[in-house]
């Protein structure tokens, strides 16, 4: 039984059992390893992707949920790291270990899509879904604010 969906504008399919989290299909099946495993319980945001244009935890999305859906991962956010959020992330030197940053960037890109001019409070509220153990939060706020300015 095959499930068909789209990843980064390309047709994809999986034979994984319906209860399999999308995360493992993306990472091990499609080899798009920018999306990370952090907690497996929707608590840390390292696995954040966009499904039909909205952010979603890939670890909490099952294969049975994705038929016909359009999924964007960090690899598909831009072809050349040119998304305003990615550019701002480098300009503000955000990443440290970097492991959570794909999820952070996907969360931030989702915020700016919904709300191109968020306040600082809105940024903090939106981004508090994502844990960064290196504590890059102050730079993340600055980078989102920069992306807002430069988008």
């Amino acid at each position: 039984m095959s499930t068909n969906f789209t990843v980064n504008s390309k047709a994809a399919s999986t034979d994984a059992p319906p209860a399999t989290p999308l995360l493992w299909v993306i990472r091990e099946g499609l080899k798009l390893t920018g999306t990370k495993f952090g907690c497996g319980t929707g608590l840390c945001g390292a696995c954040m992707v966009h499904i039909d244009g909205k952010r979603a935890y890939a670890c909490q999305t099952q294969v049975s949920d994705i038929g016909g859906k359009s999924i964007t991962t960090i690899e598909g956010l831009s072809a050349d790291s040119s998304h305003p959020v990615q550019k701002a992330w480098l300009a503000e030197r955000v990443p440290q270990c970097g492991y959570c940053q794909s999820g952070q960037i996907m969360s931030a890109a989702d915020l700016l899509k919904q709300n191109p001019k968020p306040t600082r409070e809105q940024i903090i509220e939106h981004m508090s879904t994502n844990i960064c153990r290196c504590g890059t939060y102050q730079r993340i706020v600055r980078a989102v604010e920069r992306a807002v300015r430069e988008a």
Partner: protein
Amino acid sequence: MTKHIRSLNTQLSRRQVMTSAAGLTFAIALGADSRARAAAPASARSGKALSPWVSIAEDGTITLMSPATEMGQGSMTSLPLIIAEELDADWQKVRITPAPPNAAIYGNPAFGGLMMYTAGSNAVTAYFRPLRTFGAQVRRVFLNNAARHWGVPVDELTTEPSVVVHAKSGRRLSYGEIAAFAEIPAEPPAIKPEDLKKPAQFRLISKDVMRTELPSKVNGSATYSIDVQVPGMLYGAVLRAPVEGSAPHRIDDAKAKAVAGVTSIVRLPHGVGVIAETPWAAFMAREELTRSVTWTRTGTAWGFDSDRGLEDFAVEAKNLQGRAAEWSRQGDARGEFSKAASIVEAEYRCDYAYHAQMEPLNAVAAVSPAGDAVEIWAGTQSQTTATETPAKFLDIPREKVKLHDLLMGGGFGRRGNRDLDFIMDAVMLSKEVGRPVKVIWTREDDVHNGRFRPISAHYLRAGLDASGKMTAWHHRVAVDRIGPYYEPVLYQRNGGRDNVAMLGGEPRGYDVPHQLVEHVYRDTGVRTNPLRGISFLANKFATETFIDEIAGKRGIDPLAFRLALLKNTPRAYKAVERVAQMAEWGRKRDGRALGLAYIDYSGSQVAGVAEVSLDRTSGQVKLHNFWCTIDCGIAVQPDNVVAQTESSIVYGIGVALSERISIKNGLVEQSNFYDYRVPRMNEVPPMHIEVIQTDNHPTGAGQMATPLVAPAISNAVMQLAGVRLRHTPFTPERVKKALA
């Protein structure tokens, strides 16, 4: 043509020039003293195996080795940058590659050069001088070759990035051009300290460059071991014994085996392994095993309760007649106490804490079918241990372990333990099935099998003379052991002193003539490891809170009290004075208060001020601002020092306010981020950080501010509410209890 020189190592044959691909390779053993020479493998002495630090191709590309592993702290950039500085390399032409596991060449001088080990925030400190000297030697070789080529005196030549310049004639030769014809001396040029650049001449050090791997961290291309796939690979999960030293007793694996995609269930000495075709199948089967495996009652920690255990620790810490080992001594503290006009005492406690690096532990291993070699992909803080431990287990020579050390999704001390539990899972399972295996721990595995910052209880007393001056200091620390458990080899080398549990118990920097720190050794059997801030985390919580308590007893402002005690340590004085200015120390604020802390952390001077308020109903402490100064000498990458300090503060906030591991009947009670709460963005205040640049030898920056946070908060809460928080973390329940 490649020319290898073994110049610094005079044990080697006089001149070893080998030809191969294009480029010039300088192979100079770092710190090639007798010890390094003795440690160099025999093959190196015959001129084959010594790996180079730097190679320069004829197109000008300069490849520099990075001896430290990268976990977000930036050493992969800052160490090669130190070579590049004295080499006067064009940074745009530099490529960085992880050094292979060869401690004789690349070993960290801070650990005697005997292991490659990235820990203790000491990489820049320890490698700074040798890497500069080495870079300067290579530069000198280029100058000498250009002088010979042009027939001019060498002292007429200068360098610009990757170019030798003869100003008189206007001639220029790039390093790549010189590499094509260079002759290599049998002995490396002698470099005296005065030959090195003055700080004012630095082009790279103290400037900010883009960290080399940063671009890969915004597009998903950065590779961690969890991302590795190799042909024929299977997936593994391991249900590990809940208590260290315990083993599987009965395994009923019928349900686990029935999970689609599971290929085998393997009994391991320390748990039960699952091999499957997908990670999800492995996890499902592991979950089944949690209900169908029983464990032997071997292992010390069975029955241990950390709350009760800490009560016992506190009794032992305070019992001056009880057994304790002298940890450090200055003057005659015991004698002074009998003369003291008054004595101030206090007690503090710290709970276990968990690293919570974002990448759950994992590794890929491919043991050869004959079992005589293994290839490993892992994120490790020690390339040496990561080859030695698997070699020992497989009973093969170390050279038969091929290690790919990859970026780490956080380390914080968790990835340096000698037994490398997370790598050995993969090695053992691969050996069992004869195929490559990627073992991934679930977050629950990572928490339950965490190796925690230990519990500790602290008893302190200070003796004051009739004028109020502090003359004697006594700190007794009862702490769960770390060294003998996590790194027995290093522990032995340190003479059986548990440095990672005990450093930082002294009031370093302060003028206190008589000091005694005692170690009450405890072994609960609970798994422990160094964690960011290491022993300074607990010990400075105790000492810096105590300093405030003494000031309070004397009715002196905590800032004035510290400055008076720091007047003979100018760098410390400045760090404290400046942070107080930044925070506007004297300014009263409604419903908020400030608390101060200062630490000499392995030579780095750090000071912090926390601004807090309290929700008295819930017991929640709220942080509004945190100011911090850091003087780590020459800041090789200043913006990265700021970044590391922000990071250290956030880590310290978690350990101060919410992060707590508790043990009941030997078992870890927490499981995931819902019951082990690390700081999120909405819990982190604005952080104001100032790097105080000095020309002192660089000292660490990776964790120095972490231990500032808990004492600064405790001291602020005292100012605000008149109650003293003595037990980290300051959970709302504990705060409410203190307020009641």
